[in-house]
Every structure is written in C-alpha cells, then in structure tokens.
C-alpha cells in the first residue's frame, strides 16, 4: 500500500512543479554536459586509437634532406623499432579549373603496389595503386569532395617546378591527416588544402630521389623507449640533413586532436560542478521555504507519532525526486547532444567513422554527484525539520524578530518612510541570506561578463591576427630557400604593390628540460606587413642578436625577456645555439617566434635567402597575378589572407569555438534562474505582509515597492560584485578557451560589462514583472488567513 506520505509527496511535487523543474533543469544541464563531454572524450580517444592501430600510424616521424634507402634498413634494425618505412613527401600546387589561385597540396609516396607498412590509407572510393601507370594518384577525400572530383577525373599540379597531369584512381582518408591545414596556416579548410598519394617511383623522379628518401616513418615495439629510438635515429640521419625525429605527440594532425580531447576532459571536470552547486543552493532555498510553510503539517505528523526519520525521509525523497529526475533527463539529453556534437567533429576531424560512445561511468558519476549536491543543500533543511517540536509547530510562529535589525541603521531608518524601513530591516535581519542572493546574482553577472568578454576576445583575436599583425593580402611560399632577388621579380609582377621577404625555419626551442617544436620566422628590418607586436600593439624592434617569442611559447618554456633560449635550427647546417629572449610578442593565432632575417640567415650560413614573401596587391588584378604566380616554378603555394580569415571565422562559429554561444545561453539561464528564485522566495515569504499592506489601503504599486525594493538593493549590490568576479573569471574562461591554435584574450572591455549588467537588469526586470503579476493575482483573503 502506498503510504499517505507518498501521496502527499506526489501532490507536493506537482504543486511545486515549476520550481522543481527549474532546479531539475539546472542539474540536468550539468549532467548533460558531463555525459556529453566525457562521451565525446571516450569516442574521440577510442576511435582515434582504433584508427591509428588499424591503419598503422607511425610512432616516430623523421624528415631528412636526402638519405639513401639503406639508412631506412639500418634504422629498422635498431632496438625498439618494429618497422621503418621510407617515403617521399613534397609540396604541390594544384590547378582547379575556374580558379586562378593554385591550391596547396602535399604529395605523399606510396609503395608501387600493396599496402605501406606504416601510415596506411583508408580507401573510400576507387582502387589502390597497382604500379601500372606513373600518373595514377589517390586524393584526400575531403579535398576531392570540396572540388567535386572523383575517380576517373584528371588533376593538374605543379611539383618541384614542373607541371604534370594526373589521373585520379581513388579517394582516401588517412590517420595522418585527421586534421589538415595548409603549410603555414592553422585552420583547416577542405577546399584549400589537398593531399595526393602517388607511387614512390613517380615522386622519386619528380624530386630526383632515386634510391633515396626524405621522410621516414618508424613503428615501435611494445617495450620500446621512444626517447632512445629518437636519439639513435637522429644520430644516424644527422649527416644526411636530418631535421630531428619526433614522436606521434608532436605530429601536427594528432596534436590538434589531442588538444581538443584534453580541452573536453578539462571542461567535463570543470563545468558541471558549477551547475550542481547552483542547483544545490536553489534547492536549499526552496526546501527551507517549504519546510517553513509546512511547519504545521510537520508538527501534526510528529504529533501522530511519525518519527523524525520518517518525516525527514519524506522531505528527503522530494529532494531525491528533483535531483534524480534532473539527472536522468540530463543523461538522456547528454546522449542526444553527444550524437549531434559528433557530427560537428566529423567536419573537422576526418575519421572514417565516429560513433558516439557513452562512458557508463559518467552516468553513475553524474547521477550520484547530482544527488549528493542536492542532498548537501537538503541536509541543512532537514536539520530544521528535526528541530521542530510538535507543540511549537502547531502554534502560529512568533513574529520574526527584528529587534537587532532595528538597532542597526537607525540613523538611516529615521530618514525613510515605513515601507523603505521594511526593506532596509529585512536586508539587515538576514545578512547571510541576502549575501547568498547577492553572491548568486553576482555569479550570474560574472558568468555573463566573462562570456561577453570572451565574445569580444574572439573578435579581438580575429582583428588582431588578420588586420594588425598581418597587414599583407597574400603570402607566397617558395619551393626552397631562394635568393632575395626573387622578391624583385615578384615586385615587378603586375598587381603587386609591395613585397616583403620572410624566412621560416623549423626549430626546436628549449629551456632546460622543456622543449617546443615550432617555426622561427625571419623578418626584414622595419617590416610593413608582418611584425612582432608587444601587448600594447607597439612593434618590437628585432635586434641583431636575440629572438622574440610569442606568449604561448614563452609560457610553455617558462621564459622571460633577458633569459636565454636554446634554439635547434633544423635546416641548413643545423646549428644549435642559445640566444637571448629580446621580447614577448602578443599573438593570438598560432605560436610564432621572430628573429631578424639577416641574423637568421647568418646563423644558417645562407645569406640573402627567403622562403616566403608577403604581398600587398591591387584587388582588381588579383586573378591575373595568381595565374602568374602559379606559373612561377619556385612558387609552391599562395595563401590569401581573406580566405584564411574566413576559414578561421568559420571554425570559430561552428567548431569548438561555437561552444561559447551555448555557454553564453547557459550564463543567461543561470542568471535568470537565480534572480527569479530570489524574487519568488522573497514573494513567498512576504505574501502575508504584502496582503496586509493591500488591506490597509496600499495600492498594488506601493505594496510591490516593498517587495521589489529588496530585490533592487540586492541586484544593485550584486552588480559591482559581479563585475569584479567577472573580471577574474574572464581570465580563467579565456584560458580554458585558448588552445595552441589560438589564444583568446580576456580584455577589459567596458561594453562587455555594460552588456552583462543589462542581462542582469533584464533578468531582474522580468522576474520583478512575474512576481508583481502574482502579487496582483493573489487572493487577499486567502493570504491573510494563512498563519505564516
């Protein structure tokens, strides 16, 4: 038989369904995020592992200027090495009909026939190479789709200065290219970067590498020590121009996937607790209000002989019902949201398959954490249930004691009319409660401030990167370090208005045991198009000796201006040396490092060389210029800044960056939830007082003043507090959103604070309207009959 208490439970829940659902929703959102994000973490991690395993992604990668094939055989015999596969990798410029601009691509060799031992490809259409024709190529599926290419089509490309026509025989995906970006760019764009696989012999002929290779893939045995293998490989390849072997963790595509996974993991741990804490606070307030108004019923139950435990259990079940309901709904929503997010990830990470996998532990953790958090709020309430003795509970409660509050603020009270005194004393009487409401609203405000700051930060990143740091229109990359005389040739091309040479050199930065694999950029003196800027956007002059690091590298290596940084240049004669850090550059996209071009060339022993050139151009003549550039044998790629900017904006708005909109919406929901609850509770506690005022002859407006005055005071105190909290929270959230790919600055922007203030005031205004509506609807006679 269902106990009468359980009937009461069901009816009480139905009666408070609005508030219960609001709190359940806050819990639900927390659990949803957790289930979704841990599920995504598991899905990405496991799918990636399976993909790497099945298609044998190498553990160690080494590139070299030119090494004889026998070196690959020798490396295969090293202890710890399970397999070594040499290959040829080169850059290509693909011509797409109807587009003047050549598209950058990477050409990768495959064995004449059969499968490679390492870095196999997943053929989605067509067939593998069979060694019959040297012009057969397999093309990266995403690129092919972006240009509507399919097996049987032809493809024209310039490689190492010669133009060739290929026949597409298949489309493929590859674990090596989960995340693909054009060299020198950081954001993927399917249409603007391609990969073509072709036979080893065909590529060897193109690059004049018969019997030699310049890329080596190494698979390790289970018990291998990666460091030892890398050292041994470096030793062997050093004299052939080895650029330094590196592990899978430094492989570009894998690095981005790892970055995303660790971001998800951090968010899964950090964000849901905020929601649960808010829910716990709200539950505490709502339940304590409920116990207060049901003191008579509680006394009655106790008078009938129900034990404290039984009565306590009754109220605890209500807390459990709300928490469990919210948590279960959150689990379901998490599955749905996870499946949707997986679709989004597939746009950026080219997995052949990606199925949303649940982490069963997240269900258990999510539900139990919700219940624990809710109970934490509820336990304080239960203490009050236990403390009520039946007889006292049956008497009307004594009027709330305002003696102490009356002593405080007397001077102020004397200047106020009676309704204002009521507002003042209620605030003074329950400072902890008011502080709770203020902190709650301030938290909402802080969340809004930081989310709006982050929005501004994203815009700032885009603006700074594409308008301030880089003022060029396009960047031309060369096949190899070319003489700076090439710059004059470029400058004479019709449509070019300004040219500046740069040199990019792969480098490993080091400080003590920390190292960072990146690129060092040589800039000309007094550059006009690309420069290193300090935090105040003032150009940092590049000294003859010394290096300017971006904030991310400086932080990763724990370096400050004046410190020495070890640089291991992986080109030319490959010098390793220590240079002073001359400055820290404020860059928000990528992690560059800068040096004076002449100084860099001197270090390499190759004076007057550049690897790329920044251009400004006449837009009217851009297409003709792109065609001219495509025909220059030394040009291997052209990046157009406007396209790079569009790609970046797109990834910000649809990729991981788009989470900021969801977070913004949640910040608003939390803010509104807290403000509305504060207003509702104030109303519930004073319904009888307000009815008395109305009976005495106060108009509904005058009565509402007593109610809303309190809310107004709380909100106005919360605003500056929220501003300060938001200032600090912005840094935390900005750091959370920043990745190696892009950094989001937490800028103090008055507009963000103003907007957040409007959010809070808007929430307060709407909440105020809602409770005043209830106030006007409430039945005076009913409210007065209530004993409390």
């Amino acid at each position, binding site marked *: 038989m269902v106990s009468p208490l359980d009937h009461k439970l069901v009816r009480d829940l139905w009666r408070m369904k609005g508030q219960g659902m609001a709190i359940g929703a806050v819990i639900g959102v927390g659990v949803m995020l957790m289930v979704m994000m841990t599920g995504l973490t598991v899905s990405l991690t496991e799918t990636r592992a399976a993909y790497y395993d099945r298609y044998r992604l190498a553990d160690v990668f080494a590139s070299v200027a030119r090494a004889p094939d026998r070196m690959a055989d020798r490396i295969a015999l090293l202890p710890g090495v399970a397999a070594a596969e040499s290959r040829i990798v080169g850059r290509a410029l693909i011509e797409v009909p109807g587009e003047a601009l050549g598209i950058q691509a990477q050409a990768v060799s495959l064995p004449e026939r059969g499968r490679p031992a390492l870095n196999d490809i997943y053929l989605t259409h067509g067939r593998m190479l069979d060694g019959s024709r040297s012009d057969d190529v397999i093309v990266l599926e995403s690129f092919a789709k972006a240009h509507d290419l399919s097996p049987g089509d032809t493809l024209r490309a310039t490689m190492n200065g010669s133009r060739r026509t290929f026949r597409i025989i298949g489309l493929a995906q590859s674990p090596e290219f989960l995340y693909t970006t054009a060299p020198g760019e950081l954001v993927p764009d399917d249409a603007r970067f391609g990969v073509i696989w072709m036979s080893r012999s065909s590529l060897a002929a193109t690059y004049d590498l018969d019997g030699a290779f310049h890329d080596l893939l190494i698979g390790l045995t289970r018990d291998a020590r990666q460091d030892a293998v890398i050292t041994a490989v470096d030793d062997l390849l050093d004299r052939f121009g080895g650029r330094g072997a590196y592990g899978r963790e430094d492989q570009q595509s894998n690095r981005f996937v790892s970055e995303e996974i660790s971001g998800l993991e951090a968010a899964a741990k950090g964000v849901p607790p905020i929601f649960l804490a808010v829910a716990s606070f709200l539950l505490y307030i709502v339940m304590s209000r409920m116990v207060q108004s049901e003191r008579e019923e509680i006394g009655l139950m106790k008078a009938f002989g129900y034990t404290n435990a039984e009565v306590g259990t009754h109220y605890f079940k209500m807390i459990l019902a709300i928490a469990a309901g919210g948590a279960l709904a959150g689990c379901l929503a998490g599955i749905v949201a996870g499946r949707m997010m997986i679709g989004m990830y597939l746009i950026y990470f080219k997995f052949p398959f990606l199925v949303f996998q649940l982490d069963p532990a997240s269900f258990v953790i999510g539900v139990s954490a919700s219940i624990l958090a809710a109970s934490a709020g509820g336990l304080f309430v239960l203490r009050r249930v236990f403390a009520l003795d039946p007889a006292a509970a049956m008497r*009307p409660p*004594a*009027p*709330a*004691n*305002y*003696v102490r*509050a*009356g002593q405080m603020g007397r001077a102020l009270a004397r200047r106020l*009319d*009676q*309704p204002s*005194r*009521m507002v003042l*004393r*209620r605030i003074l*009487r329950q400072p902890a409660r008011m502080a709770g409401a203020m902190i709650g609203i301030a938290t909402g405000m802080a969340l809004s401030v930081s989310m709006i700051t982050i929005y501004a930060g994203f815009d700032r990143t885009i603006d700074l990167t594409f308008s301030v740091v880089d003022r060029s229109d396009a960047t031309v990359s060369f096949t190899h370090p070319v003489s700076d005389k090439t710059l004059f040739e470029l400058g004479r091309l019709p449509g070019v208005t300004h040219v500046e040479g740069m040199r990019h050199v792969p480098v490993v930065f080091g400080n003590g045991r920390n190292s960072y694999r990146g690129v060092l950029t040589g800039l000309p003196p007094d550059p006009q198009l690309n420069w290193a800027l300090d935090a105040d956007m003032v150009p940092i002059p590049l000294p003859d000796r010394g290096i300017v690091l971006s904030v991310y590298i400086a932080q990763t290596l724990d370096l400050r201006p004046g410190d020495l940084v070890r640089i291991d240049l992986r080109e030319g004669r490959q010098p390793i040396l220590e240079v002073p850090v001359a400055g820290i550059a404020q860059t928000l996209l990528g992690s560059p490092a800068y040096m004076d071009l002449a100084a860099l060339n001197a270090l390499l022993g190759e004076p007057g060389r550049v690897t790329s050139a920044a251009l400004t151009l006449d837009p009217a003549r851009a297409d003709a210029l792109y065609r001219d550039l495509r025909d220059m044998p030394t040009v291997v790629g052209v990046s157009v800044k406007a396209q790079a900017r569009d790609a970046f904006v797109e990834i910000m708005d649809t990729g991981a960056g788009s989470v900021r909109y969801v977070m913004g919406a949640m910040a608003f929901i939390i803010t509104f939830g807290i403000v509305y609850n504060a207003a509702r509770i104030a109303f519930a506690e004073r319904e*009888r*007082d307000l*009815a*008395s*005022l*109305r*009976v*005495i*002859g*106060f*108009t*509904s407006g*005058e009565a509402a003043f007593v109610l809303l005055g309190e809310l107004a005071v709380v909100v106005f105190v919360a605003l500056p507090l929220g501003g300060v909290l938001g200032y600090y929270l912005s840094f935390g959230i900005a750091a959370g959103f920043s990745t190696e790919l892009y950094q989001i600055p937490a800028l103090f922007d008055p507009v963000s604070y103003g907007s957040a203030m409007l959010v809070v005031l808007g929430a307060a205004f709407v909440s105020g309207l809602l409770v005043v509506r209830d106030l006007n609807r409430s039945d*005076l*006679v009913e409210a*007065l009959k209530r*004993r409390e």
Partner: protein
Amino acid sequence: MTSPAFTTRGLTKVYGEGHTAVHALRGVDLEIPKGEVVVLLGPSGSGKSTLLNILGGLDRATDGTALFHDTNLSEMTDRQLTRFRRDHVGFVFQFYNLMPSLTARENVELVTEIAQAPLDAGDALALVGLADRADHFPAQLSGGEQQRVAIARAIAKQPEVLFCDEPTGALDSQTGRTVLKVLQDVNDQLGSTILMVTHAAHTAKMADRVIHFADGAIREVVLNATKLNPEEIAW
C-alpha cells in the same frame, strides 16, 4: 435611527462553479446603522466572514448590491476599492497581521503616512494603552499587545468603519476582554461603526445589534436593549 453605513440587497456569493459550487451568501438583505457596534455571530462556514470581506472591499459579491452610504461597492474597480479601504475602513484580524520589521509606532505610522486625517501615531497607541510600548517590535510584544497595536493601526486613520474578524480568537479571556474594551472605547470616542465577526456568543453582549448567521443567510437580528461593558462579560 441614523442613516445606515451599509445597506445590502440580495447579496450573494458563490465560490466555484457547477456541482462543486459553494453558496457562501444566499441573498442577504441588511442595514448596518452608522456608529453602532454590530456583532456577526454564527458557526464557521455560515458566511459571516464572507459578508465582512465584501463590505470591507476585500472581496466582491457574485450578485446583489452592497452600498456604502450611496456608493455601490460591487461596481468599484480594484483601484477604487483600494481607495475605499485606504480612506474609510480599518481592519483587525485574528492573527494581528503586523509588519514584524516595524516597531509598534512604525506599524501605526504605516497607515498615518497614507491617510487623509490621521491621529498622531502616539495618540492612537495611547488610546489602546500601549504608549509605553511604542518602540517595541512585534516579536517583543505579547499576543494581546500585538492585537492592540493592530487596533491602533486600524483606528489611526479615524475610519468610519472598523472591521474585526475574530479579534479575540487567539487570545486568553483576560487579554480578550482588554481588546474588546479598546474596541468599545474606539466606538465611544471616535464614533466609528464597528462590525465584528466572531463565533464567541458572549462577545455579543457588548453589541448594539447582533446578527445571527447560518448557511449563508441571516437567521435573526437581535437588538440589545442593554449593552454590557466588555469588562462585565463572562467568558
């Protein structure tokens, strides 16, 4: 007899609809003369509080008319009813309904601040014998004292009518007598009409007129030839 303060004709109040409808008042015809102490007696659910609430402008009749002098309360808007309560009537309830955050004096001032020709708050408290407790908060006052503050608050505007709903319901006999005495004094000194709802029959002995209620209708109206002083009433 002077002109009536209130006149009702066919006053009807129905709560709910259809077969769940409850008829709280079933066509009440009544005249309440100005300046009298009138007691409404009857068991709970007989409709006496409903009548009080309608005459006091807290509730509206479903049918019939309720005139305050020549004004029909049934035709008033919410705003006009608020005005009516503010300017003409005072209320005293069983559970006092004081503002816990205001002292006795401030509770009275709550009314004097918005009334047209109020008494001084101190004088109103003196009238109920609480001049020395003026700066105490409700939490520092006994039940009887709280009820006297409520009366002081109700009379401070010098209302034409004072509505009392079970004013002694939560009080012991001695305190109850004190409160009734205060009401009698208000009637004597300010000339306010007093309309008091109670189910304690002995209270009727202080009334000029006793209206017996049953099942939403007036069963009997008794005029007291000899009013007793509240202090002489036996509980």
